């Protein structure tokens, strides 16, 4: 009895300490969370949809590397004050991910000359260390060999590196999982490219580059499924849908399609595809290029790319961007390179080369 009483006391103290730690965290939450002004850009359902599209095109402040920080910070602050409070975003964002997407690309820092910008800012001097998934999937990386330059993300990375003055041989590839990329502590990469979708919540924790690709969500079914040719999104209300965990595809199911049965969530698309084959789910939601990869990559014997979902003009779509450590000086250099690649049409050309085969002519599933 005595022993258990003592144990009880110890546990009570331990629990109290944990609670105290979290409690004090909320009181001075401003200290760690909002050191970067961009962190407060919390696009809410109401405000972001309209402001985002304008902001992405206009508010991007071009500046020289030396003076960029103060100007950009000022610009972001103005945006931040008009945004909804972070707590509102906390509760509402689940339902509105597509609407909040890309709020973070507003007022991005962009270096005028990416080639002179990078000096001394990379992990290893003279090298550009880029992380991708393990494994990396087609058509973003062909045959899981990013160093080949084949596949969209691999090709984009070599183009970005070239704009920043790196030779192909100076690009070093490493592999990280999703958790490793977002964990606190020193990172093993300068930039991480594995179809990270930009959202306002995520941008509080990491830096995102300008998007290198914007895609729609798509539906994969079996060929014989009764959902193989949906006329509109409403047809999918009764479908049992699946997605990979932590994806914007999942939030698309819960927030936009809103089927009557709860979505099934898998570790990765391979598990979801297996469940689809087993008739455990009716359909799998993924981004469009990945959908093509699943249907044609040999993972499914009777996969069917049923369609891509219509994007409303107020929605930015699923914007894929490089993930970079929060506050990294390299962000503006990568942004500068990406801006040049957008302006000279290289990005569009690479997208045609690597993604058009899978994305052109896919039927559009309208809303409603």
């Amino acid at each position: 009895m005595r022993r258990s009483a003592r144990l009880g006391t110890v546990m009570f103290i331990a629990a109290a300490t944990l609670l105290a730690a979290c409690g004090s965290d909320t009181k001075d939450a401003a200290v760690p969370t909002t050191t970067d002004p961009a962190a407060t850009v919390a696009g809410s359902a109401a405000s972001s949809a309209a402001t985002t599209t304008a902001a992405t095109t206009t508010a991007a402040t071009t500046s020289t590397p030396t003076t960029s920080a103060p100007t950009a910070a000022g610009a972001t602050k103005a945006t931040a004050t008009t945004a909804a409070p972070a707590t509102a975003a906390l509760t509402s964002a689940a339902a509105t991910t597509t609407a909040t997407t890309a709020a973070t690309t507003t007022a991005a820092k962009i270096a005028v000359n990416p080639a002179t910008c990078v000096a001394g800012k990379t992990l290893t001097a003279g090298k550009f260390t880029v992380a991708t998934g393990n494994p990396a999937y087609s058509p973003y990386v062909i045959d899981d060999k990013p160093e080949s330059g084949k596949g969209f993300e691999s090709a984009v990375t070599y183009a970005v590196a070239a704009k920043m003055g790196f030779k192909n041989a100076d690009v070093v590839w490493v592999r990280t999982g999703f958790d490793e990329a977002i964990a606190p502590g020193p990172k093993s990469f300068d930039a991480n490219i594995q179809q990270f979708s930009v959202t306002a919540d995520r941008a509080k924790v990491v830096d995102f580059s300008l998007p290198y690709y914007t895609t729609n969500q798509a539906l994969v079914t079996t060929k014989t499924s009764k959902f193989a040719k949906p006329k509109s999104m409403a047809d999918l209300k009764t479908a049992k849908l699946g997605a990979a965990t932590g994806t914007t595809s999942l939030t698309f199911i819960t927030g936009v399609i809103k089927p009557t049965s709860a979505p099934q969530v898998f570790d990765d698309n391979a598990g979801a595809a297996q469940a689809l084959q087993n008739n455990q789910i009716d359909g799998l939601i993924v981004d469009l290029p990945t959908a093509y990869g699943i249907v044609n990559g040999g993972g499914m014997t009777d996969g069917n790319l049923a369609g891509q979902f219509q994007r409303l003009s107020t929605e930015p779509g699923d914007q894929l961007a490089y993930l970079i450590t929060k506050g990294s000086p390299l962000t503006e250099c990568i942004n500068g390179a990406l801006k040049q690649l957008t302006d000279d049409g290289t990005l569009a050309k690479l997208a045609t080369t690597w993604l058009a085969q899978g994305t052109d002519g896919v039927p559009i599933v309208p809303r409603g």
Partner: protein
Amino acid sequence: MTTPLTRRQRYEQRTKRRSFAIAAASTIVVLAAVVVLLPMTSGWQKVRHSFFDGSILRFSLGHMLGPFWYDVQIFLWCAPCILLGGLSLAFARNVRSPALFPLRLFSTIYTDVFRGVPMVLWITLIGFGVPGLLQSRNLGRAVIWGSVALIAAYSAYVGEVFRAGIESVHESQRAAARSLGMTSTQTMRHVILPQAIRRVVPPLMNDLVSLQKDVALISILGPVEVLRQAGIDKAKFFNFTPYVAAAVLFLCVSVPLTRTTDHLLQRERRRTGATAVR
């Protein structure tokens, strides 16, 4: 209570108080050291923000209760099945009739195979494999085959625990029971098992607590239980606090579970201990 304490009792009381004071003081010193030293590490601010964000913790705890209840439900129907399965395996392994040797062989092989492969693999293989054969929405539900995988694998572990308990009862007990005219079944039922089970309660609890956590592995197959929900929230905020919230929920169940068992065992020891002379 009004009778004055003997010198011996006073002495014992003093030592008890003293040891309690020492335990309390050392606990406070250790906790204070953690509370003071941890924030002095260079990465503490980042770690605190990533793992102990107050607002995310509240958000997660709030909507994780549903998924966690799902975990508890799975646990509740798996646990009795596992105890039954384990006991059957233990019996099968203990049969002494030569005619039943195949049963013994089966039990041995079963235990080896199911204990020898990681739980994640069993859940993936059974949970994706069998529904692939069935091709049926209702019979192929992930939660059914996930539970089957858990029950199948855990029965092997628990079977070994029961076997150890049964074998720990001295052979003389069996001999005594048989010489009183009990059949071998009666001996098992009334003499061996009561002693065996009492002895293996602590290791059984070990397995049950471990099961309560492994239930989360069913999320591989698609159902959104607490660990999956935590993973989804993590990806939403790029923050690991939801995992801490999930850990807190698991502790809320497993700590009372273990404390209660400890308490019951202690009571049992006091009741049947060697000092209780009648």
